């Protein structure tokens, strides 16, 4: 493993953009709970990976926190009832991705009592085994709350080299989104405790919480929270400069350590695990309070929102209800975005509901999205090259994709594009570059042509399998050796014993003879 510091010296990642962040507008009011809607709509899969196994039927009465699905492995994440009520339907529900698409879900009618069952939790997590902690997080339905919704258990448990540090990502670099900042302001102690739980679960030696330099007050509060808890694992706060897309896992790791996560690898290969601050706070709620992931903070903002704010919303709350809670819209809305303006998902309807990864609802009006010119030919200005954090050549990729030369684009590392949108945002020709890349990736996947990364991942997997087999064979060999040695030793002992016996027999024979 490479030798590096974490956060003592900050580095730069290539490209990136300084964007106007528009965050303050949603931070003027304190966090408040969004009203409970008359019906919660819960897709079964709220994470990357397959849905868990359904546990309820229509007509079941459930308590808040009760699991509605069960995970059969680390890649599945269960969902829980966000409040007490009755299951009124099991049906395909509208989901954010694909826009306008539907997926299996549970319809829950709250009974208004908001009765909660605490789930199983350790009496004292500090003396709990790491694996039991991960198990607890897994059954608590933890998935990356930063937006990616990656199953946390799968991130914590795996065939990784020893983990050196846990990085908590508090640098939400996309404009408008401020849910993490609000969380850090209002629940710093929960984040720090969650960090310690996670550090114990993965055996990390230290925790680094990365925040942006514009969150000055947050730093103080986090530091106070760190001082207030017992220092079994060192926790540090590091301020990073705000450049989009710094909140990207790979970019943040590069900023903190100067290391690049290998394109066919994971942060764990560098001995790092990177999680969102909200994920840490949720980990604490699961382990300490016995409260699974049933709500999250959502930023409702954008020029189309009357009173931008941050709301604590139960999962399953429709977007429309949140917009209403934020004072409604300022007029006709042209686009609703789940996430930020640079990389968020466009929503096909406001009936889509909040899931574990829904960090922000952004409402944009016609005048916010209108383009000042039609799409023009690429003028090779190189702006896209200048801002690409993956050091790709966006214009060359585009040229090949437009010519339907998909293989060439793949060879130019199309799959290393993180779809951050920087290139499209600076393109004077208004070429929808990211759409081309998404489409190109889709075509390549469809054609069944494994992208370079998948191939390498497979190679890695195979290498690991082989390592494991070898290790197993080695162990087997050692075991046999040991057994043989034992047997040999036994045999030797037997011989010695036999010789003694013989000698004794002889002696006895003599005496016996004598005696008899």
């Amino acid at each position: 493993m490479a030798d590096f510091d974490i956060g003592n010296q900050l580095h730069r990642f290539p490209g990136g953009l300084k964007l106007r962040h528009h965050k303050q507008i949603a931070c003027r009011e304190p966090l408040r709970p969004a009203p409970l809607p008359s019906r919660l709509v819960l897709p079964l899969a709220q994470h990357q990976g397959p849905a868990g196994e359904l546990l309820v039927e229509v007509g079941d009465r459930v308590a808040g926190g009760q699991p509605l699905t069960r995970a059969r492995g680390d890649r599945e994440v269960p969902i829980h009832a966000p409040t007490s009520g009755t299951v009124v339907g099991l049906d395909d529900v509208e989901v954010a991705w694909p826009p306008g698409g539907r997926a299996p879900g549970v319809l829950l009618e709250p009974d208004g009592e908001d009765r909660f069952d605490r789930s199983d939790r350790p009496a004292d997590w500090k003396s709990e085994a790491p694996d039991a902690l991960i198990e607890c997080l897994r059954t608590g339905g933890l998935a990356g709350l930063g937006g990616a919704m990656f199953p946390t258990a799968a991130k914590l448990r795996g065939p990784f080299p020893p983990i050196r540090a846990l990085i908590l990502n508090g640098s939400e670099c996309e404009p408008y989104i401020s849910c993490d900042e609000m969380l850090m302001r209002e629940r710093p102690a929960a984040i720090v405790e969650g960090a310690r739980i996670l550090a114990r679960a993965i055996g990390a030696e230290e925790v680094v919480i990365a925040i942006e330099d514009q969150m000055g007050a947050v730093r103080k509060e986090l530091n106070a929270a760190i001082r207030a808890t017992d220092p079994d694992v060192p926790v540090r706060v590091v301020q990073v400069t705000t450049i989009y897309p710094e909140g990207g896992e790979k970019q943040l790791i590069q900023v903190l350590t100067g290391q690049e996560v290998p394109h066919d690898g994971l942060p764990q290969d560098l001995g790092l695990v990177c999680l969102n601050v909200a994920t840490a706070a949720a980990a604490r709620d699961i382990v300490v309070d016995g409260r699974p992931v049933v709500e999250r903070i959502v930023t409702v903002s954008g020029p189309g929102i009357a009173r931008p704010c941050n709301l604590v919303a139960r999962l399953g709350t429709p977007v429309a209800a949140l917009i209403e809670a934020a004072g409604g819209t300022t007029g006709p809305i042209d686009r609703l975005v789940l996430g930020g303006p640079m990389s968020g998902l466009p929503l096909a309807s406001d009936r889509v509901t909040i899931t574990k990864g829904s960090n922000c609802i952004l409402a944009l009006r016609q005048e916010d999205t209108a383009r000042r010119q039609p799409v023009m030919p690429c003028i090779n200005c190189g702006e896209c090259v200048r801002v690409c954090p993956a050091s790709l050549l966006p214009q060359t990729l585009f040229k090949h994709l437009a010519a339907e030369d998909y293989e060439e684009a793949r060879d130019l590392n199309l799959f290393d594009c993180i779809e951050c949108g920087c290139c499209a945002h600076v393109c004077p020709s208004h070429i929808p570059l990211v759409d081309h890349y998404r489409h190109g990736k889709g075509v390549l996947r469809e054609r069944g042509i494994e992208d370079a990364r998948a191939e390498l991942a497979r190679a890695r997997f195979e290498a690991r399998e082989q390592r494991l087999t070898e290790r197993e064979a080695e162990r087997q060999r050692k075991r046999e050796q040991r057994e043989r040695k034992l047997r040999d030793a036994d045999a030797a002992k037997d011989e010695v014993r036999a010789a003694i016996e013989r000698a004794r027999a002889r002696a006895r024979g003599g005496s016996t003879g004598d005696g008899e």
Partner: protein
Amino acid sequence: MNLTVAGAPHLPPITTVGAVMRQVLYALVPAVVAHVWFFGPGILFQITLAVAFALGFEAAMLRLRRVALRPFLTDCSAIVTAVLFALSVPPLAPWWVALTGMLFAIVIAKQLYGGLGHNLFNPAMVGLAAVIIAFPIDLSQWLAPRSLSAGLPGVWESAVAIFTGRLPDPMSWDAISQATPLDALKTGVAENRMVAEIRDAPIFGDFGGLGWEWIANFYALGGFWLLYRRVISWHVPVAVIGTTILVSTPMWLIGPDINPSPLQHVFSGALVFAAFFIATDPVSGCGTMRGRLLFGAGVALLTLAIRRFGGYPDGVAFAVLLMNMAAPMIDRLTRPRTFGHPRGERP
């Protein structure tokens, strides 16, 4: 709610082609003003003529290609080509120079290759090269800068000269067919005179040619503004000027009698202009950052070589065109290493 479902990013791009091109035009204003001051109002006629021809040709070709006129006529790219061309020809060049130049620049170099973004060669320099070759005499008729001539031609005299191809009466042909400083240097050296000697001639200023060096300063001023506005990146100007200084310094130190000083190289002819406005043309240049460094270095080297060994006093146009040919290759060779890929690997 009627929602648009379109891919990210969800905010419009921060700039447009037209905006980029207009910034280039604004950046040229100081140099144009300086040009008028030193050489009279002829340049304004040249700009007007070239722009008119350029837009006319562009519109005609777009119509022929059955492409929407509006976005491409308003993107200002043809205007930029026209202005860059006009700034490179003598201020009293006759009207057919602008006509021929724009014919080659817009019709042949740009539209026949597919229009905006598809041209392999810098259109303004194609036009310039064409008229240098087609009208060598017209292209060598430079005016003497302000303080040297009895008086600069006024608006009326300039118009008559440009539109009739004949020079106004009170002015003598001599005052007009002034050799440019680079011309003078080249012929001087060929006649075995020393650079210092040649430089004593009144057309030379402190570094380059009288007047010319000031215009170069104003080009640089506009160039810095473009850098500040991030319309151009630093790579090309630094490479062009840096290479010129780097290569001409040792030559000057070894043979100061036959080689002009690095400052003279920089401040004469079209070097600064080319560094900020010509070699930075994105379409026909390099798209990678390291490629731009190589591209700029190549332009500088070829310019120096043509100035020293070639048949023309200044070789910027030809240098740029030659490097245009090499640009796709350079781009290919200078692809950056993708994030997370091993060092040394290049797609």
